[in-house]
């Protein structure tokens, strides 16, 4: 049996993101079936489930990434601090400023480390060189990358190792100062040491951000998350605190997955 190493949070956290009756269709195929979830503020919420269960589809609906795909249809409500991000007059571009995303494969731009880190502020209009340097240093420190790259900020980001590139991508998101950070299996392409660095980082980040993380590793979810949601074939089966899910799951399917009967 897996036990969570994170204690149950003492006070009840505010709800940062409220997902109500979310449905996502790829053409005729329904990938997410009426999922509802409350994502608490300043906590780490993990989405687990076997491959193909829809967790990536779900998380991409939280920052309107599906807008970029022509044949994907999203129905339902996703409320950030009470306001639906899918409402008619909401600009998706500004949503993605408040809800950032880190991808499964590190995708640094073919530019220097500095340029990658300040990309966000630049496109939002920050010009002052001094301010950009400040943001760069702050974000890279926050992402636990500063000491490793401070002497080569103007070298290409593609020269970094996989783990360093992913931390750079996290720094990139941090520089935009979002409220929510979505992470789609951020460490799945990395070796164990790089993975543990990322995990430590995530636990630190929840003081200032709300984190939602998709992971295929139950151990990872148990190590770093406060709340866990279990998906299976497009359905959200069960949500609860991490320790509840892993020690006393309510649904038999959750129990089967946790104990490794399939997955």
């Amino acid at each position, binding site marked *: 049996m897996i036990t969570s190493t994170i204690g149950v949070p003492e006070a009840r956290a505010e709800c940062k993101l409220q997902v109500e009756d979310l449905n996502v269709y790829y053409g005729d195929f329904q990938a997410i079936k009426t999922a509802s979830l409350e994502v608490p503020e300043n906590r780490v919420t993990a989405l687990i489930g076997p491959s193909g269960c829809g967790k990536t589809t779900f998380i991409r609906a939280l920052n309107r990434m599906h807008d970029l795909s022509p044949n994907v249809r999203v129905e339902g409500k996703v409320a950030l601090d009470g306001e639906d991000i899918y409402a008619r007059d909401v600009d998706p571009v500004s949503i*993605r400023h408040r809800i950032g995303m880190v991808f499964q494969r590190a995708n640094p731009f073919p530019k220097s480390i500095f340029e990658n880190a300040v990309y966000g502020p630049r*496109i*939002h209009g920050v010009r002052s060189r001094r301010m950009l340097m400040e943001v760069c240093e702050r974000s890279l420190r926050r992402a636990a990358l500063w000491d490793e790259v401070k002497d080569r900020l103007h070298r290409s980001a593609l020269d970094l190792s996989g783990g360093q590139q992913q931390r750079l991508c996290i720094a990139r998101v941090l520089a935009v100062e979002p409220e929510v950070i979505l992470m789609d299996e951020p460490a799945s392409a990395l070796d164990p040491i790089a993975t543990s660095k990322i995990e430590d980082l995530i636990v630190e980040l929840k003081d200032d951000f709300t984190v939602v993380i998709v992971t295929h590793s139950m151990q990872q979810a148990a190590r770093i998350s406060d709340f866990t949601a279990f998906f299976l074939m497009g359905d959200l089966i069960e949500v609860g605190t991490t320790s509840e899910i892993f020690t006393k799951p309510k649904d038999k399917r959750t129990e089967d997955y946790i104990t490794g009967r399939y997955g």
Partner: protein
Amino acid sequence: MTAIADSKSFASRRLLESQRRVADLLATIVLWGAACSIVLLLAFFVGYLFYLGAGTISWHFLTAPPSEISAGGGIGPQIFNSFYILFLTMVFTVPVAMGAGIYLQEYARPGAFTTTVQFCAESLATIPSIVMGLFGLIVFVTLLHWHFTALGGALTLTLLNLPALMRVTQEGLASVPLIMREGSMALGATKWQTIRRVVLPSAIAPLTTGIVLIAGRIFGETAALIYTAGVSVSAGRSAYDWSPFHTAETLSVHLWYTHSEGLVPDAARIGNGSALVLLVMVLAFNVLARVLGRLLSHRLTSK
């Protein structure tokens, strides 16, 4: 297995087998022969043109103006005009073609407009260059009363090369992986910001290679220029005329004109020299395209 084994005798199966092998061998020889002859053909052409024209090349030949009736003329102004028209054509072609290419690749939705643009581009690409030259004659030379001008030639060449540069742009953009775009959009960038700051810079190597190769083709273009830019250089004024409205015979047009109407006694010699210079320019553009392409893609990874 037994059905096949029983239906034919052992000997006839052996025969069939060796027939198949022979056919395969023959085909392999033919295909290899075809490929090698292409390489040999080019080598032979290049060698022959060097052999014919090497003797003519001299500093005088490359810089002096052509002579009307006596021997000893040069191709200086023609080389100038070739570059001038190339530059002018690029000024028009690059913005329009890249603009249309970016739109088709990044913004356009399937529909009547998109299909029409693509159909028009494909058609423009198939129009024979002499026909386009006549269009230029109708509009730029006659209708607008410009007579033979470099500008008219450049605009005509723009029409001919729009489709090629559009295709280069679209392929260059397609070579940038989706995850790059998603990374930028996920940070709150607009589509144009993403294209301008991430996608285009990432595609700089294939774009540059493609543009330089197209420039090489423009340099050698002839049929569309004969009746738009003319067959002579500015008479009376300096032959190196910077105005876009001057009659601008390019090197390739000069080669054709010397052959067909040349009154000078050394027309053959001039032709050989011109042909060689044209060939060398084509090789130079090709080499430049590859070198730049390689340089730029290395710069992206280890700056």
